[in-house]
């Protein structure tokens, strides 16, 4: 799936939060990130149930030696709809790498899995606006 495209930074320049990332991983800018381990370590989100950390604010390659990355936590972003419903007004969750679908009650109860609020209804594979506010 295509990475997210941030269209509007909200808060203070998108309220970036710095996380630790593994040095050897490649992370394109705009990747939907998850909190993968303690303390404050992030990786690309890949599946339902991931704890959403934000959107990668910078490019990371496998060889750049970078071990810290900022994630945007307050913005409007175009995200790709995964397989399943993506409906305006519904909280969204990760469904696959860089893909979101409507969250279920269980996801909402575990607030950390919520990616944001969908602002439009889109078909599977299409991009739609999501309000992110972690």
């Amino acid at each position, binding site marked *: 799936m295509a990475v997210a495209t941030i269209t509007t930074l909200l808060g203070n320049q998108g309220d970036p939060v710095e996380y630790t990332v593994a040095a050897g991983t490649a992370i394109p800018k705009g990747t939907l990130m998850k909190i993968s381990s303690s303390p404050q370590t992030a990786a690309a989100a890949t599946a339902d149930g991931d704890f959403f950390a934000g959107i990668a604010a910078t490019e990371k390659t496998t060889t750049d030696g970078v071990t810290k990355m900022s994630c945007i936590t*307050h913005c409007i972003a175009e995200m790709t709809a995964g397989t399943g419903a993506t409906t305006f007004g519904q909280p969204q969750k990760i469904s696959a790498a860089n893909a979101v679908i409507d969250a279920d009650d269980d996801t909402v109860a575990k607030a950390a899995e919520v990616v944001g609020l969908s602002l439009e209804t*889109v078909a599977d594979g299409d991009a739609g606006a999501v309000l992110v*506010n*972690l």
Partner: protein
Amino acid sequence: MADEAVNITLLGNQGDPVEYIIATGDAAAVGTLMQISSSPKTISATDGASQIFAGILAEEKTATDGKTKVACWTHCLADLTCGAAETMVLGGTVMTGAVANEVDVATDSTVEGQAMVVGIAQETVGNNGTGTVLINVGKRR
């Protein structure tokens, strides 16, 4: 319309305004509580309980000004009117009310839906009283 939000304190970056689409013939005053009424990103004035809250209208919209885009504040403190026979309680969540621009106490299903939450009451007021609400649209809780 009556009961628009007043005494608005902008938080975040100037209230974190978000631009939405609006029908060109709609009319609404500054401070109107707005709902996301259709896809994509289209809003109208709230007019019933448990609607998807978009924010507080940040600019005047008349039926003849030709505008099709307006901004809503999404992060602020605002004085809102509590619905009749309702009591919003300090620390409790409120949702769009049965009457335009009023808020009612949020139900469990509203809170689970998240998008229907207008904000968190900063004081206890009831029965058409006016109280401060912390608004932060889209904030996961």
